């Protein structure tokens, strides 16, 4: 995935969300364990993927927690994307070790703008790969 294109998509998404400093915003969301800002980080990541692939998807995301008892976001996110027309799960992947196992979500650590670039690139690659491979018939 072309890093410059990923950065451009993130910049566009950032503008849509009226965020001045993306790195600061993401770091703050994590360090201040702000669930509302963490929600925005997840949505912004999804939007950047859509801009990058020039396509809309149906999404669900999970803001993961480090301390389950206190439900403190730990900077990890899980994303599930589904094709809006076919219903195909686009974040589906076979486990690389246990081939009989599969997962339907993409997990990424997003604690900085640099992490967001990696997350958007990884997510977009997986979605693209699933779009190219056997689609739901």
């Amino acid at each position, binding site marked *: 995935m072309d890093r410059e294109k990923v950065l451009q998509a993130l910049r566009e998404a950032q503008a849509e969300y009226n965020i001045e400093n993306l790195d600061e915003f993401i770091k703050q969301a994590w360090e201040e364990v702000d669930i*509302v800002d963490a929600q925005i980080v997840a949505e912004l990541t999804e939007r950047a993927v859509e801009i990058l692939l020039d396509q809309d998807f149906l999404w669900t995301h999970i803001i993961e927690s480090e301390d*389950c008892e206190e439900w403190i976001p730990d900077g990890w996110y*899980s994303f599930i994307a589904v094709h809006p027309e076919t*219903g195909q*799960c686009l974040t*589906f992947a076979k486990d690389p070790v246990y081939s009989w196992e599969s*997962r339907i979500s993409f997990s990424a650590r997003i604690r900085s703008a640099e992490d967001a670039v990696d997350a958007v690139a990884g997510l977009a690659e997986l979605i693209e790969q699933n779009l190219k491979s056997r689609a739901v018939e």
Partner: protein
Amino acid sequence: MQLEQLTYTEEQIKQAIEEVWQELLQEADAENYSLEEYLEDYRKYWDDPCFPNDIPELIMRTVEKIVGRPLSWYCELVRDPAGFTGEYSFVVVDPKTQKCLTYREYTSDGVNVHRFINIAGTVVNYEDIVRLVIKLLDQIQSALAAA
């Protein structure tokens, strides 16, 4: 949703829930802990992560037992700033076709299309578990039939 519309009975679902509960107990090396006792503890301590995490496993293994094959799934324990709300949100995918089985589409006013990829429900007691299993089975059944 009426149970009569389904090809499985409430009795079968309850039987499957009990079987799965026994399997979970065996795996945890735990004995003599009935589902009723568990649910009493769950209601007292549901902000403790030990309790809510067993519910999705119980529900989805029951669904898989009735469907007759493993499914790929993800469950979110829905939270708000105050903590766990008691609501579980499931996304289920057929590992054979990669099709999202909890994908639903509604049209309102003949124009607006609303699409969802999850099935959610709140669990407080045993009947809620049965209700959520039925809700998931009903959705999965129609998605598999449409495929």
